[in-house]
């Protein structure tokens, strides 16, 4: 069953049971919201979406009011606009005026609405909250309750999307406060650190701790890609600033996961820039010839690498370590590739293709695995190729 109503003089036909907000958006008419999110149930908490409805008493919240046949709605009535302005002013009376240094500057729904409605920062001498910023020791989620507008999107995201029920409100009235569990630390409240609450926060009350100070939306470039951890295949945006990944944000149109990510996908990206990354080929000295090694090291083309614990770094200044057969030398690509190509060719000619075994990789791309398979079968001449599918 469809219902026809009038919004701002425009006739709109939508399925019965739609809300005024849905009908308006369907008709391309925008109504401001804060606590509403299309993925979450509507609670009508923030009163930003109030609209005038003919013959109705008082303003109606567009996100929770169902349409009816012949309904006449004015989304831009003076009454509605003034009320929204008042709601914003009230929010600002207890909100830090620090957009200049706020992480979400330019990516803040409150800021956008204050701008749209031309609200001046209110003179306010009454009580303000003064919560400790970042009071939770978890390494993932930053909390600043001074910026919380009590919209409950994080609570609903945790409940309805993640189904973990970590967040809730505690206390009453002005003292109403967003809490984890029974006002505990997140990790004590069974938080899985998925960061869904951060993704749904319309303001800067919840943010990714690893990305604090790393760049704001206007400074970041987003690149859509697929996660490098498990096989679920979540898509997300790598947020890049000056050639460095500084944040991962989820995307509504990700085919498998939508806004959902797990702790590894959202917060496990920094290995990409870890100083342990191998940056040059390494070849044991015995495959290079003592003379050549000495010469190349002396003229600075190659470097002697030391194996310290788990990784390799070229030695800092000071006396050079001595070279033995087993010493790793950082060489150029040509040298390293030639060492491998020559040795492989020699072994193939002497012993045939089955003297090789290739571990392909479940971490590499499809295209790369195709090439590993082609290389193994066509060039090496064996079917000895496998990967960790069984492990």
């Amino acid at each position, binding site marked *: 069953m469809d219902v026809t109503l009038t919004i701002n003089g425009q006739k709109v036909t939508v399925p019965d049971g739609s809300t005024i907000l849905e009908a308006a958006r369907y008709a391309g008419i925008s109504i401001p919201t804060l606590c509403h999110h299309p993925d979450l149930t509507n609670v009508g908490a923030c009163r930003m979406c109030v609209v005038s409805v003919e013959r109705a008493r008082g303003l109606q919240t567009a996100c929770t009011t169902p349409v009816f046949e012949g309904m006449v709605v004015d989304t831009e009535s003076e009454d509605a606009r003034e009320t929204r302005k008042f709601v914003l002013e009230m929010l600002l009376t207890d909100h830090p005026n620090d957009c200049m240094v706020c992480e979400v500057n330019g990516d803040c729904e409150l800021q956008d609405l204050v701008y749209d409605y031309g609200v001046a920062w209110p003179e306010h001498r009454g009580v303000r909250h003064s919560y400790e910023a970042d009071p939770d020791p978890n390494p993932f989620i930053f909390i600043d309750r001074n910026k919380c507008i009590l919209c409950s999107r994080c609570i609903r995201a945790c409940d309805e999307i993640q189904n973990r029920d970590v967040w809730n409100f505690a206390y009453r009235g002005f003292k109403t406060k967003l809490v984890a569990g029974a006002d505990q630390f997140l990790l004590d409240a069974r938080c899985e650190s998925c960061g869904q609450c951060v993704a749904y926060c319309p303001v800067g009350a919840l943010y990714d701790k690893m990305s604090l100070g790393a760049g704001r939306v206007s400074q970041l470039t987003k690149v859509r890609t697929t996660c490098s951890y498990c096989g679920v295949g979540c898509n997300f945006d790598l947020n890049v600033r000056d050639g460095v990944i500084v944040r991962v944000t989820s995307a509504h149109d990700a085919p498998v996961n939508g806004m959902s990510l797990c702790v590894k996908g959202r917060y496990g990206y920094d290995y990409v820039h870890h100083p342990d990354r191998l940056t040059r080929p390494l070849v044991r000295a015995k495959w290079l010839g003592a003379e050549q090694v000495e010469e190349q090291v002396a003229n600075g083309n190659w470097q002697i690498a030391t194996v310290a614990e788990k990784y390799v770094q070229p030695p800092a200044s000071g006396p050079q370590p001595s070279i033995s057969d087993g010493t790793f030398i950082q060489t150029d690509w040509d040298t390293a590739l030639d060492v491998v190509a020559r040795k*492989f060719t020699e072994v193939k000619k002497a012993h045939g293709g089955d003297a090789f075994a290739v571990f392909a990789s479940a971490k590499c791309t499809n295209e*790369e695995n195709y090439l590993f398979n082609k290389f193994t079968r066509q060039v090496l001449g064996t079917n000895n190729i496998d990967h960790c599918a069984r492990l």
Partner: protein
Amino acid sequence: MTNSIRDIAEESQCIFVIGSNTTEQHPVIGTKIRRAKRRRGVKLIVADPRRIDIADYADLHLRHRPGTDIPLLNGLMHVIVREGWHDEAFIAERTEGFEELKAVVEKYPPEVVSEITGVPAEDIEKAARMLAENRPGALLYAMGITQHIIGVANVMSCANLQMLLGNMGVPGGGVNPLRGQNNVQGACDLGGLPNVYPGYQRVTDPAIQEKFERAWGMPLSNQVGLTVTEMLKAAEEGAVRCLYVIGENPMVSDPDLNHVRYSLQQTEFIVVQDLFFTETCQFADVILPAASFAEKEGTFTNTERRIQRVRAAVKPPGEAKSDSWIIAQLAKRMIALGAASPDPDAPHAGWDYESAAEVMAEVNALTPIYAGVTYRRLEAGETPQWPVPGEDHPGTPILHVGKFSRGLGRFVAMDHVPPDELPDDEYPLVLTTGRVLYHWHGGEMTHRARSLEAMYPEALVEIHPKDAEKANIGDGELMKVASRRGEIIAKAQVTDRVEPGLIFTTFHFAESAANFLTNPALDPQAKIPEYKVCAVRVEAVPEGNGADGEAEMEPTG
């Protein structure tokens, strides 16, 4: 997976999770299962020896002993057949071998199964009823099913159950393995296996061999190659002289690491291509620095066979290069040295690729299930699920609709086979291994992700309070775990997540990796090691001994 994440989340009436710690290993699927349970009221049955997180959300947690999946599944099927709850029409139309199955499951009444598995008989009755009354139902499994000497038989038993219930080829049903790595599905699909070319085309099939010989311009071997576990053995024996290890770390991920170490030491020439200096690099002759997922273009295939784009966001550090560049360089140099002489006129003989899209075009030409997975579609935002036999084909979200790929679905009746190594007086406990939420595989990446590492910085061994007390091990204290193959020292986590007689640890930490302990016994067909069961003993480590958590890494026997 035969089905898709979406249809399971939205259309199943019952979700049966067996051998999968879903909320920790595939967290976003775990979330969707929880959501289906809470928002749609689907029934959730979890079968796992440990009280894993998702068990807290289950209608029924069947806590069977490790290595008793077949009797458990047979027990469920026994009840279903006894009560006449099986889908007769589906069985008659679409399957064969039902009578043989019936004869075998006949021998597994709940009381017998309860003896073998430790699951109360009434829970088996309840679970069978729940499965029967809530169709379609989806079965989800992971390595808890496969990492056994009877891994293949376990999978077949899962398929038996789902065919019996008529849960195949329908939305919300299916047999759904959850794949562990980002692109383990793609590595299997694109020829990273010893018995098949890309698209599961057999190396032993002469017509397929000829097709690839013509494409690549070289005579090719028709001998099935070695699996990972066999490669190391062959290297130790000298049959394999060169190992080329790309993005893998056998010195952490393979069973019986003391033995792996020995095999790697015996190998003449080892090339490792990776992001980091892994444990395996210690044995390498040449190490080639590779690019990470964030530094290259390409595609990954997820657990539901969906092909999605991977895009370069940053540059590789230093001189690190993409794996495709490296392998093409090696190929060209070896061809120049005469290691192989592909016919230059063959359509796909060469190694000059400008882009990942060009490689995919070659895949399209040679791989029927990927024929329609073109970059034109991928760049337009499509994420098709294979098989995609043509460019105009929409992809295949659900397999086996109307007909199984082999024609009739065959019931393969299975009897219980106990694990290869069971506890005895000397090694009285069972060790089962797995993973935790904050780490991934050998830990090469997650140990270098600072927040993940901060959450879980060292190996823990889950042990039941009774066993801990018996061995005088306190929570958080160091303990030694020894098997016939090696021993590790790690911190005890005293918890009833495990039952008495069972301990659990992970292989994420190289210095105390479970794989010093694990049994390299393999499933004869899949060659998968039995990571889920081996016999161990535990003892307290007096303070001051091994306090740095260093593992004993010398062979013990």
